[in-house]
């Protein structure tokens, strides 16, 4: 039985005390595949991303999230990360005084046994390779985490971290928003470099544009807190041309 997948089952979630934002999300991303998750503003995409990563401002009222068959619901955000989940944030925060290099070394070592910390040379090699993959300057690793970064640089940093931390499953929350064409290419190049048999990703976006660079295996469409339809990569293109009302109507008619 193949359990190598990221699975969301009937997930309901809300901001503590509020009404449900997620109203029964079902979604499967098998290892080795990249899926797109599309939907209008307010459809629940970003909430889903944050809930999966364990954002404490949300509470889950029903359903489950499974990584390779194992529920992560009871896990703290750091445990989920160590279980292989990674969220590329839509709005990464700044952490003043903490350099990217120090931060990432700590994050890698958090995944390893105490007596098996990563060697300094091995770490820097890994980090520098990732920096190169993103056409970035080496000096970036000594800069403090997102301090004074432009929006584009922050997004690039999220992908840099993805390449260094090598998660099993990544959720990219509107990584394309606010990027110019060149930055979009670079970021996509990074994500494509991570693709492989042991890597699954859920790419959240409004626009087809990103999916020209990161070609998805499947496309899911979210509306009003649920995944209303799933299709092949062509669905994104069609959606782009015909709009979200079209898909809503189509789904409603089909149902």
């Amino acid at each position: 039985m193949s359990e190598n997948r990221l699975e969301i089952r009937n997930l309901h979630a809300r901001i503590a005390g509020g009404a449900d934002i997620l109203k029964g999300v079902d979604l499967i991303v098998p290892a080795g595949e990249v899926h797109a998750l599309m939907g209008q503003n307010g459809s629940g995409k970003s909430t889903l991303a944050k809930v999966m990563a364990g954002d404490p401002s949300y509470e889950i009222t029903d359903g489950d999230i499974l990584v390779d068959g194992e529920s992560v619901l009871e896990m703290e955000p750091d445990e989920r990360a160590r279980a292989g989940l990674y969220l590329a944030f839509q709005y990464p925060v700044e952490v003043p005084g903490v350099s990217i290099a120090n931060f990432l070394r700590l994050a890698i070592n958090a995944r390893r046994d105490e007596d098996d910390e990563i060697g300094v040379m091995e770490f820097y090699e890994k980090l520098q390779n990732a920096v190169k993959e993103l056409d970035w300057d080496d000096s970036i690793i000594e800069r403090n985490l997102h301090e004074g970064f432009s929006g584009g640089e922050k997004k690039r940093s999220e992908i840099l971290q993805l390449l260094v931390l090598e998660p099993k499953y990544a959720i990219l929350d509107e990584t394309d928003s606010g990027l110019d064409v060149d930055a979009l290419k670079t970021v996509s190049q990074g994500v494509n470099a991570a693709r492989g048999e042991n890597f699954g990703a859920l790419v959240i976006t409004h626009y087809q544009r990103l999916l020209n660079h990161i070609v998805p295996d499947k496309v899911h469409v979210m509306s009003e807190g649920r995944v209303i339809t799933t299709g092949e990569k062509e669905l994104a293109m069609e959606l782009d041309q015909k709009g979200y009302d079209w898909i809503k109507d189509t789904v409603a008619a089909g149902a």
Partner: protein
Amino acid sequence: MADAPMPHPDADKLTGMQHEKQYDFQLSESYFYKSEKGLNKEVIEKISAFKEEPQWMLDFRLRALEIAERKGPPKWGPDLSGLNFDDIYFYVRPQEQQGTTNSWEDIPEEVRETYRRLGIPEAEQKVLAGVGAQYESEMVYHSLKEEWEKQGVIFLDTDTGLKEHPEIFKEHFATVVPPEDNYYAAVNSAVWSGGSFVYIPAGVEVDVPLQAYFLLNAQNIGQFERTLIIAEPGAKMHYIEGCTAPTYNSDSFHSGVIEIIAKERSDVRYSTIQNWSHNVYNLVTQRAIVHEQASMGWLDGNLGSKVTMKYPSCYLVGNGAYGEIMSIAFAGDGQHQDAGGKVVHAAPNTSSSIVSKSISKGEGCSSYRGLVQIHEGATNAKSNVECDALLLDETSKTNTYPYIEINEKTAHIGHEATVSKLNEEQIFYLQSRGIEEDEAMALIVRGFLEPVAKELPLEYAVELNRLIELEMEGSVG
């Protein structure tokens, strides 16, 4: 007072042994002398006689006592009502200085546990706890000492400094912090013991930091240490007093005075990280007189203690003098850190910078108290003050008392103050990368302190971080 220990019956015979036996801990272990509790003329006369001091020092001490009695404790600042002089030993013979404890078993488990977790070897732990001696550092010290002596550098404990270099000593002693300055300086002047005496001749640059622990006998980290540092014109030095393990002191009062004279074109840095046990009132006066084109930097880290009041200051008295004060304070549960800095611009073209970073946790409170004063005639003075406070939870507090007095139109003053709470979003972000919650908080705090911590020598910065992590334990929740 049935429990008040009597002076050692052989105390008189022991007079004078102190200096000869300074590095001979094995011999001195069996000797001790302790004053009676309380502060009065008799206690001071005994201290001075015991140390075989010149008459002028006894006179100085007695005058300081009068001043202290006249002044009385300050009526501003943190609550010091728990401090009772009648219950304090004002002089304890060196190996006893750390308190009434002389057995490892008597050190509270909490302090011993902290030593263990800091990874301090047991021999060193015992020194810090005041129950043993550190032999290894002596070896290091002796080789450096030879080199320094060739350059004419004097680096001694203050009592020995007074004995061996009376002229230099008398010329400078109490010229920076006279007993009239403040109540606690007066108390210190009356009962001072230990501390470091440093003299750097003109033009000599000392590359290796002079570290107080080289002089480690319990005296140096004692209750009423008096440090006097003199940098002659063009001299350069960095003095480090690193007491990063919690200094266990069963007596609950520490009141030091640090005097620094930075003469023309000299470059002096004084760095200290102090971590007092949580029952200590830590009231210290640190001041430097900075002459023409000289540069003075204080780096002051305050952890532990019950109450700390400490405002390192720079008096910029020469044209072009520069003063810098960087401080870190961590107020844990039930602690009050009242720290900051003071700069007096008394000459033209002087400049200064104050950077203060404080962290408060639980029922802790940290205050920034600072003064920038620009005298009339001190033209083109520049000063920049930045104080940042970080609150780790909902219960901790912070205050800012920035005083600025400008009597000169050409002054340029910058002041910036921020208060922030430990940010949930930052914690979640770091956790989402696999870092545990407590480690995430520690990382944010380290980042907050980084602009100051990076000025410390690496080993001290590392130890500071470990200390902060220990202090932060239990913050999660």
